[in-house]
């Protein structure tokens, strides 16, 4: 673990000529993401951050930036370790987190109490940005479950006409927050879920099949699924192994896009699978692309040899959200400048994030005052996106994510 960190640190030094030159001490940006179980999500977040920073010459407020990569593997205790590493670092400014709500949910109090400037491009649980017990240090530019449930339900019920959803949720804080929002969204439409099933991580395929049989036997016509890629794959495989009359459409949260779901459940298998999932309203694959989006794509292609086209950006949500979030961070730093004292700067920048008045052009949208001071009355104050920014999407034939045009 230490070796990995040192290697990453060294690589960052090499990446950053300013640091090597030793002009000013580097500002450390942490990325505590899942680099093991949902590798694609972690990498795409990193690339989003790097591309955005690259646009600024890898500088923040005149300081060179080092991106320090940590891997929580989806584990709360492991994430806590990483948070402690951040705290132990005198030059750590902000911490990007990613993929998986549970570590954030479990460590939320610690984060806020320890004043860790947490930027969330990919963790959807509603409570993450809603900390009622003090200063709120978590900002999100991502799907928010409080809205995701509504968006999924709205599309499935209002647009597609399903009426008997069966909720299939992982046994975590994220799963439970979705249970609430989805149930609420359904109730709003006078619908009760016909069933609810919880599953643990490392769910087995046979257990998944039993769940799907029960779902079908309950008379459901659609499954609302909240799962990450590993369990998402298991459930998809289980579905594909069942008889045709047991197969049901799946309307999923976006957790499955964080890993190698599209690779493992390939285009041919997906032909037998009616699967849609929520995404934010931007895709490099949309027919019309702004000049900014084109330049970002171009820069990305330049920076990463494996990216030759838009469809080569895997887990694009991580990239898009991280890029936009970094843009917001850059703007906030620009607004207040940095003192060089990271601990002090964290608070300054946190406050600046809440008052970004300069519009920031991102990939998803042009951000006008994206954040505000949080209070019980303004639960979305730390949410950069609204439900209008979320749509349903499908996997294309080349495993690319295609937004469903409504």
């Amino acid at each position, binding site marked *: *673990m230490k070796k990995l960190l040192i290697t990453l640190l060294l690589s960052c030094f090499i990446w950053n000529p300013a640091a090597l030159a030793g002009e000013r001490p580097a500002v450390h940006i942490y990325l505590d993401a899942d680099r*093991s*179980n949902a590798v694609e999500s972690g990498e795409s977040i990193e690339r989003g951050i790097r591309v955005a920073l690259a646009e600024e010459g890898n500088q923040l407020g005149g300081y060179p930036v080092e991106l320090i990569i940590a891997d929580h*593997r*989806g*584990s*709360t*205790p*492991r994430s*806590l*370790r990483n948070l402690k590493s951040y705290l132990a670092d005198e030059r750590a400014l902000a911490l990007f987190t990613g993929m998986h709500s*549970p*570590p954030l*949910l*479990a460590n939320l109090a610690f984060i806020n109490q320890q004043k860790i400037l947490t930027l969330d491009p990919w963790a959807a649980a509603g409570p993450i940005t809603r900390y009622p017990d003090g200063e709120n240090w978590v900002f999100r530019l991502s799907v928010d479950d409080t809205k995701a449930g509504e968006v999924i339900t709205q599309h499935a019920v209002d647009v597609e006409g399903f009426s008997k959803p069966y909720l299939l949720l992982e*046994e*975590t*804080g994220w799963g*439970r927050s979705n249970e609430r929002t989805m149930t609420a969204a359904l109730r709003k439409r006078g619908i009760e879920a016909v069933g609810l099933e919880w*599953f*643990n*991580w*490392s*769910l*087995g395929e046979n*257990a998944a099949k039993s769940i799907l049989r029960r779902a079908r036997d309950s008379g459901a016509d659609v499954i609302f699924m909240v799962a990450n890629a*590993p369990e998402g794959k298991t459930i998809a495989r289980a579905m594909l192994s069942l008889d045709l009359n047991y197969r049901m459409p799946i309307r999923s949260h976006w957790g499955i896009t964080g890993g190698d779901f599209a690779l493992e459940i390939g285009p041919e298998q997906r032909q037998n699978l009616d699967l849609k999932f929520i995404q934010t309203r931007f895709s490099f694959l949309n027919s019309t692309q702004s000049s900014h989006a084109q330049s970002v794509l171009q820069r990305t292609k330049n920076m990463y040899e494996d990216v030759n086209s838009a469809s080569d950006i895997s887990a694009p949500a991580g990239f898009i959200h991280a890029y936009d979030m970094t843009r917001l961070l850059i703007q906030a730093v620009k607004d207040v400048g940095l003192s060089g004292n990271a601990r002090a700067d964290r608070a300054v920048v946190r406050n600046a994030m809440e008052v970004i008045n300069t519009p920031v052009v991102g990939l998803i949208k042009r951000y006008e005052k994206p954040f505000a001071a949080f209070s019980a009355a303004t639960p979305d104050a730390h949410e950069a996106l609204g439900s209008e920014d979320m749509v349903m999407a499908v996997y294309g034939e080349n495993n690319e994510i295609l937004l469903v045009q409504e």
Partner: protein
Amino acid sequence: MSKPKIASGIARVTAFSIVLLGVLVTLLVSMRVSDAMQEAEQQRLETQTAIIVGEFRQYLQDRSLILQDHTRFAVMRQGVMQPLQMEGYVSDFMADLTVLGESYRETLVDLDGNTIYSTHSEPAADYRYQPWLIDFIDQNRSQLIRLSQYDERFFWQVVLPIRYLGSTEGALITEIPVQAINEQGKLSDSWQGISLVLRAGEQVVAEFGQVSAATRKLSLPWDDVGLVFEFSIDESELLKARRGLIYELVVLIALVSLVIVFIAFYWGKRSLVKPIQYLKQATEDMADGRSEQPLKEDLIWQETSLVAKGFNQMLQTIQQREQQLRNSNRELAQTNDELKHSQAQLVQSEKMAGLGTMAAGVAHEINNPVGFVKSNLSTMNDYTTAISQYLGEVNTVLQQDAIPDSIREQLKSQAETLDIDFLTADMEPLINESQEGVNRVADIVASLKSFARLDSAEMEMTDITDGIRETLKVVWNELKYHCTLHEEYATLPPIRCNLGQLNQVIMNLLLNAAQAIEDKGDIYLSTAVVADEIQIRVRDTGCGIPAEAVGRLFTPFYTTKPVGKGTGLGLSISHGIVEKHGGSINVESEPGKGACFIIRLPITGEHAGVKLDDADTEPTVMVR
């Protein structure tokens, strides 16, 4: 000095060897057995102790395997990933966990060692930031078994990782009391003569089983747990067993040795001594002439067979040589006989030749005087006649008166004195008798000449009867005084023969017959024609011939006569002569009653097979 026998020699050597071997084998085997048993015991101990250690390992491994299943439950995995949210689920789940029916303390910890849930709250345990646990999790190890101690009780700590998608996110730590493995002595009771002390450094962790007298100690480390297994072993039973085994072995070897000695003795006797004794007996028999049979060559052993074979070859060679010697001896004897015979013949022929010459000379010399005596006698006879005639005339004249009486008387007285009358009367018979005597002399001389056959030494066709008669004339003088000769002559055909020699034979036989008759006796001489041969029999009523002499009668120089009376060559020469004529001479004799010699001569020439016309005619029989 009597020499030792092979069988007992073999038995002694075998016995000595076997005893030596037995002692050596016993020593060696005892040593080896002792070593082997010690080695086996060592191995047994090593195996046993390894098994015991293995039992411990297996005991823990079995439980570890079940515990590994516990770690795979999704709720356990998620429990370490999201401890706070999962706490309730995890506690509900873990509360009922058992391992092989036993409820051990199982503690689920996160990657920093924070306890998420523990099935037993007592004794309290704090695994936070334990280096071994952090190391275990960071190294992503698959199992750790270590020893722990609470309240002076020792536990095995079985640490198993809780993994999610390959990486360790926490651990399940299970504590199993060390003594639990030996519940009610179930385990240690099965260890024969072995007790065990588990040590961690100087500290005694656990003791299993008891032995009364430990003769050996053995230590085995259990490195990965940092323990040492100290075994105490009671070997007294083993030593007893070893002594017993060695004793049995010694007795067994002694018995086997004894059996081998007996077998060697009998085997040596049967296989080695018997053939040799057989050879010895056979050679002795052969030497004594009791047997000339070759030895059996089909003997058990190659060597004795070869000896027998060699012996037989030697025997054959000796027999051949002996035969050759005999043959040469016979040839020599024959040659000797022939030589003697030739010599005798030579002597006889010389004698005969001398006799013949002398006879011829004598005859010649006698013939002349005999001739003129005969002639003179004849003349004298004539003279006598004339004288007688004259005297008659004279007497007549005297009767005439003219003659004075005186003269007459004178003449008459003179005549009476001279007995002239008798003289004149006897003169003629005298001359006749003398003439007869001279004739007889002439006859004898003629016979002598004829007998000696001075005139014909060659074979010629002759009637043997003539020869016989001639011969009788020669020998008659020898016979006439004490023998009565009975002659019986058949009419014989002439045969080709040397009559002089045959005469000699018959003379010989007649003289022998005469000599055999001491006082007075009879000699029967006969001839006959039997089938194709002429038989001449000369039988006497003399003393006969002893049986032992019969076979040797015809041997040269053999004689029964007193020294000076015979040469011993007569019959030998006779035999030779008869054989020369293709005939045979045999003798039949009964001692005290006489002997009978039979000469058989084949009828040859034109008379062979011809039945004589007068063969049936009565033979001429005479007795003299």
